[in-house]
């Protein structure tokens, strides 16, 4: 069974229960007690110690926009969009392709999993992730990210974050079902006049779709997500072609440079002031 997350930002209340449940279940270490000043977001992004991350996007209506009533009801001039981010578990996963130890594998549930007993901390997955998810933990040396609660799924349980979510903003289920559910939800939202609601699943890109689907309002960039993510393996062909051409040039150039060697040998010997032994 291929499983997935559907994270619906329009239902999220920003309670961070997912962050806490994830940390508790997976024994993820503290990420410090730093206050960022960015709304109520004090974790700032996904990382080796943050596998679920609730984003707080603050939105203002433009100047001169109408305000509902005059009793101080300001809900229409300010809006808060919360969205719980997580590893996308890409169909074509850059980290998995890049991993030189085979530590990163695809599980039977379709998730992307870093085997902690194999990872040697080379750091290549960190730069191979188009979503900036994977991170190396300095005090440990290995790379970490969401495991999709592989252990819980093995035992037939839902991932910790989806279990803890009080509003069903995070839904866990079969990928196919969730795609249908997402489409139905978008229709409902649009019918209610929320026309800027979109599904984010990178299906139209070289990533080939993700196993973590998101519904949110506005542009992906508002949520620190790439508008057009690319799996880095798309660059392999250009890179290796260039390397091959370069190698050919290096060999041919050197051969050409040494072409007159026999004639020049004597000159070279005397110029260096050395005798061949």
């Amino acid at each position, binding site marked *: 069974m291929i499983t997935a997350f559907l994270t619906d930002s329009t239902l999220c209340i920003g309670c961070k229960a997912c962050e806490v449940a994830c940390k508790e279940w997976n024994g993820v270490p503290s990420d410090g007690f730093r206050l*960022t000043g*960015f709304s109520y977001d004090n974790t700032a992004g996904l990382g080796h110690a943050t596998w679920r991350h609730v*984003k707080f*996007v603050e939105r*203002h*209506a*433009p100047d001169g*926009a*109408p305000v509902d009533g005059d009793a101080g009801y300001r809900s229409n001039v300010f809006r808060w969009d919360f969205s719980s981010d997580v590893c996308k578990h890409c169909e074509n996963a850059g980290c998995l*392709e*890049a*991993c*030189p*130890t*085979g530590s990163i594998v695809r599980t039977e549930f379709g998730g992307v999993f870093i085997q902690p007993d194999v990872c*040697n*901390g080379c*750091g*290549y997955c*960190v*730069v*191979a*992730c188009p*979503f*900036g998810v*994977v*991170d*190396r933990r300095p005090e440990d*040396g290995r*790379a970490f990210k969401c495991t999709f609660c592989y252990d819980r799924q093995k035992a037939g349980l839902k991932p910790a974050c989806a279990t803890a979510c009080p509003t069903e903003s995070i839904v866990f289920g079969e990928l196919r079902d969730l795609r249908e559910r997402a489409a139905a939800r978008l229709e409902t939202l649009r019918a209610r006049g929320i026309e800027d609601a979109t599904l984010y699943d990178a299906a139209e890109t070289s990533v080939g779709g993700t196993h973590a689907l998101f519904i949110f309002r*506005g542009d992906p*960039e*508002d*949520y*620190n*997500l*790439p508008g057009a993510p690319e799996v*880095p*393996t798309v*660059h392999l062909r250009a*890179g290796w072609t*260039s*390397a091959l*051409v*370069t*190698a050919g*040039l*290096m*060999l041919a*150039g*050197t*051969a050409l440079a*040494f072409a007159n*060697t*026999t004639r020049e040998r004597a000159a*070279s*010997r005397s110029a*260096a002031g*050395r005798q061949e*032994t």
Partner: protein
Amino acid sequence: MKYAYRAVTDTPQGYYGLPLLKAPVWTWEVPAYFFVGGVAGASAVIGAVARAAGADRRLVRDARWIAAAGAAASPPLLISDLGRPERFLNMLRVFKVRSPMSVGVWTLVAFSQAASAAAFADVVAQRTRGRLPVRVVGDAAGVLSAATGLVLSTYTGVLLGATAVPVWSRNVRLLPVHFGASSIGAAASLLELLGHRHPALNRVAIGAALVETVVGAALDRREAPPSLRPATAAQLVRVGAALAGPVPLALRLLAPRSRTARNVAAAATLAGSLFSRVAWLEAGRESARAPAGRVSEAD
């Protein structure tokens, strides 16, 4: 009632100006390896070609020794950069053709075997007054080290290019040319500084400097502000490119008879080659720090 809400962060800043990507975690050992491995690989190429062309044995031997020494110095650099150095052998439990790092590791393994065999064969050949089997083994190892050396000095460009870091992937075609040319330029320069005056080394170095000059110019055009400039990494890239390209090119062409000019050119090439690799890592760090809005804008 409908009107467009604007995110507080709805500017080129993306989400509070926070980086979308994770910056490379690599430290100085990685660019140092790019340099050492590149020079070693290119030196093996020079050694094999010089041998085939019948150049003097001293040049062949030194080229083989540079290759072997570089091959010996590379693994410690790579291993010390790992988060878990004691697990370095895990690199050899799989071969993944779609992972440039996996390809690179296996290439390095093959190269070190071949390069050290070629260098060792030279020593044995000297002791045994050049018996034929030793020569044959040495030359075969030399050819193998040249073949793997070509990959070793160019794949690092693919390694950087096939990532999500915008400034690297944008230049995926350029980086292998850049690293390959500066590797062979540096290898020829190192041999010159060791006292070899074979004119072919000068020609190799001129060719490499020419390619480096063209690559530098192409980069300058592509990476117009603000993608690389005026940040510090851009200045580093520029200094490295100048040292490996126009500076030695001018010195070698304008003062072809001056030994000093040639030595200065050789030193500049070596410095530029090392420098530009450090600079490219820094440029990658800077590029990965760009907020969401900037990353998509740049492409």
